């Protein structure tokens, strides 16, 4: 028992409600700041309850039960708790809990609002990306369409010459090549595009056949990323393509 010994006897009397005068005031003051003694007070009251159980006697008359039931029938139960000094901490706790809940609700509402905003941004971004993707596909379809016709506008009156336009991004290994005015080839032959690296042998970069208008396109051939290109060249190869050039280039690129 961790009760303070100097209050032990008086605490027992207090539990029985028979402590009076200055002693009672002193115990009440001590109980206010001593949780151990408050706990001991509860136990002492429990001990007193055991004493109450010893009071065996006759059962109450049946009229008492009837009287109680009649009064209960007349009085609807009020769910009301009278304020009491010892319950102040509990009331404070309830208010604190209510306050905490309000804070949580506010935070949740704010978080929800931020999530909705974030979702809206993502949806807008997604719509934009879809739009860009649609446009890119449309561009690719146009570039690779069988009926795609390229026009080269030149000054003067000279007949149009074979011409190729190539865009290469070495970091991603992406290549787009557009040709125009390409001479028609004999059957079973095709043009082959070559990547000429800064060091090493030429690397195949796509096989193509010009259409009737002499136009052709090579879009994103399977190239390894990170190859630095010195230039590009086109040779005439068997229609299946070659692993290495088998003829002299018919066209060679120049930066521009």
């Amino acid at each position, binding site marked *: 028992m961790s009760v303070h010994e100097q209050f*032990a*006897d*008086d*605490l*027992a*009397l207090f*539990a*029985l*409600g*028979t*402590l*009076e005068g200055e002693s009672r005031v002193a115990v009440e003051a001590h109980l206010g700041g001593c949780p151990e003694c408050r*706990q001991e007070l*509860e*136990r*002492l*009251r*429990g*001990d*007193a*309850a*055991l*004493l*109450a*159980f*010893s*009071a*065996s*006697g*006759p*059962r*109450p*008359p049946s*009229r*008492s*039960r009837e*009287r*109680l*039931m009649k*009064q*209960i029938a007349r*009085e609807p*139960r*009020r*769910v*009301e*708790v*009278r304020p*009491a*000094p*010892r*319950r102040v901490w509990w009331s404070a706790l309830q208010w604190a809990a209510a306050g905490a809940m309000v804070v949580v609700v506010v935070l949740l509402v704010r978080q929800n609002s931020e999530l909705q905003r974030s979702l809206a941004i993502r949806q807008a971004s997604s719509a934009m990306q879809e739009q860009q993707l649609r446009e890119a596909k449309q561009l690719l379809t146009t570039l690779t369409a069988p009926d795609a016709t390229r026009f080269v506008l030149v000054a003067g009156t000279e007949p149009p010459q074979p011409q190729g336009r190539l865009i290469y991004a070495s970091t991603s290994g992406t290549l787009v090549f557009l040709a125009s005015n390409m001479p028609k080839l004999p059957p079973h032959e095709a043009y082959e595009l070559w990547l000429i690296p800064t060091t090493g042998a030429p690397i195949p970069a796509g096989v193509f056949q010009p259409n009737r208008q002499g136009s052709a396109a090579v879009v994103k051939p399977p190239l390894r990323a990170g190859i630095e290109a010195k230039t590009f060249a086109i040779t005439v190869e068997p229609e299946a393509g070659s692993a290495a050039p088998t003829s002299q280039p018919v066209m060679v690129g120049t930066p521009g």
Partner: protein
Amino acid sequence: MAQLYDRHSGVVYSVALRVLGDTGAAEDILQDVFMQLWRNPEVFDANRGSLPGWLAVIARNRAIDGLRKRRPEQELSDLVVSVEPDLVGRAEWSRVLDKIRRVLGTMPATQRSALEMSFFEGLTHSEIAAKTGEPLGTIKTRIRAGLSALRKACNV
């Protein structure tokens, strides 16, 4: 409420009758205690003790108040009674009562008397001392030791 009454009215009535010695007054206390529970069930905290223990102490306090014709010293909601729930929750009443009676039976008569005068008659230790002619300190110690003996017997 009818079930609670059937189960616990005996204890409440017995305590009130023991204190007041009057069946009519004891019936009033019985009615009063159960109506209080009906009106404000929140005043009993099941986490802090057993209902019969709480009812018994409330009945005793009400009866003592009636005896002294004074206002209650404590609000019902202020009263916490720690009795082991299992002690009275199980159908072991007779065993528990046997223990209590045995402890009271083996207790020195002076101690039991001081305890019962304090509890069932609501006498202060000064009043008991005046009645028995014994020192105040002795009465205090006997009452405390008596409660302690009851606790020890029922917690084992």
